[in-house]
């Protein structure tokens, strides 16, 4: 595999100048994700608008370029999505980096995140790429479950 198929200028721009890496003020919810074997740590925050869509997404943390770039790319993709859409995209991303979905048309909703497709040829790095997506999904699912409990009560 050629270096530039993954570590290209666009990818490196997300590493060097992440637009979404900052501490958010008054987030609706925050969730932490770690990859103990890599030392990757990520804290992901979102603010939800009144209609329930993601109004703002941001992260802090440290780790390898893949985990950091992936978090930045994901944040960009998530703004304006409903939690259900977001969870669906997280699932699709997971299936892409595991090599389970390769069809371009099917991957289209991932937009720029498609640039991480080649991770599927780097099994050791799948966890790095997934960290942000897994963290977001866990957060949104936990929130949905809590909402349901509240309504049920």
């Amino acid at each position, binding site marked *: 595999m050629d*270096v530039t198929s993954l570590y290209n200028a666009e990818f490196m721009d997300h590493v060097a100048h992440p637009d979404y890496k900052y501490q958010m003020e008054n987030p609706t919810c925050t969730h932490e994700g770690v990859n103990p074997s890599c030392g990757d740590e990520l804290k992901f925050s979102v603010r939800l608008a009144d209609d329930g869509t993601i109004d703002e997404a941001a992260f802090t943390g440290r780790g390898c370029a893949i985990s950091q770039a992936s978090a930045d790319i994901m944040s960009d993709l998530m703004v304006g999505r409903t939690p259900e859409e977001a969870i669906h995209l997280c699932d699709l991303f997971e299936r892409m980096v595991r090599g389970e979905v390769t069809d371009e048309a099917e991957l289209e909703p991932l937009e720029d995140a498609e640039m991480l497709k080649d991770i599927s040829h780097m099994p050791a*790095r799948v966890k790095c790429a997934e960290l942000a997506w897994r963290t977001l999904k866990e957060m949104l699912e936990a929130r949905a479950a809590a909402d349901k409990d509240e309504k049920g009560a």
Partner: protein
Amino acid sequence: MLTQDELSTIEQNPYRGDYPLLSANPDLAFLDSAATAQRPAVVLDAQRHFYETMNANPLRGLYRLSVEATEAIAQTRDKIAAFLGAVDEAGKPCGSQVVFTRNASESLNLVARTLGRSVLKPGDDVVISIMEHHSNLIPWQQICRETGANLVYLRMDENYRITPEEVAAKVGPRAKIVSVTQVSNVLGVENDIPMIARRAHEMGAYMVVDGAQSVPHVRVNVRELGCDLLAFSAHKMGGPMGIGVLWGKPEVLDAMPPFLTGGEMIDSVTETDAVWAPVPQKFEAGTQDAAGAYAFGACLDYLDEKGFGALEVRERLLARYLTDSLAALPYVDVIGPAEGERHVGSVAFNVRGIHPHDVASILDMNNVCIRAGHHCAQPLLAYLGVENGATCRASIAFYNDKSDIDALVDGLAKVWEVFHGRD
């Protein structure tokens, strides 16, 4: 710096052709032998030869094939004993001091669970070092928890040395077992085992040595080391995966209770009791990997034929060239001694500001294999305080040559370029 003669020695490579995987991948720079070595064709051939010509369950059958299989294992035991300098006054190898396991980890677990469980009492000390591989750390953590013994760490000074003062301070009258790695799998430094063993014995403690990274690269003589038990893996020296060794002094092995129980490890069994077979069978329950043991014998023959002394000298040169080459890169920090002479096999390093996993991935795309991560030594990396708790590690074996290390250096320049552009 290497002399012109030394450089020309490592430019040549009379060994690479003996290794099918390396021959099939001429552009591959394999610098991860500390994780597992490549295997020469003679080892692979031996494995096949065993199954084709002498396959039978060793120790069980009374027919000729089974006897041959049993013989093959016994001969390998002798080769290993000879390799480790475990010979009697007449110079005859003491094969009965060699116990086969699956790997160094199993050997160390065996020691912790048998020796540890039988000698440790609440308040006793088990002394290990801060540079242990998890395989010589977790078994002791567990057994200390179980027995109420304390786990005490030898720490190194700023020169990456475990000093006699540190050993005197930590190995005291409460010490019952001292278990230390001879060579660190991260830093590549060699510890002064004879010094530590002397202190351990003065205090009446057993001395266990993790030889996983030393036996493949330096001539280990168990008598000179002065240890009671030594653990290592065949796969890190060109033997098959799945064969490990525990060497022990006969009186120590005799006193240790068995580890796994079942077939092959008994003399006699009644409905209520069993009498253990003598060492080494006492520790070898069930069918052993006889083909693997036989192939490991072929590996030792290969090392003998090439001349272990010459291989050791060559590896020293490669380690010096590797250390010097890394230290010369302005964006690379060597983690460990700056002197190449002090590295046995391994050199740990980081590329400034770049996560080791990214370094390893980009090197991989340039056909260079190194290891990146915590190297199963998390307490060491925490103690060193390295960023991300991870480093890169390049490690050599005698079948490497100068071009492998030059490929690493070129690859690291590419890594830097990917992150910082060409300037």
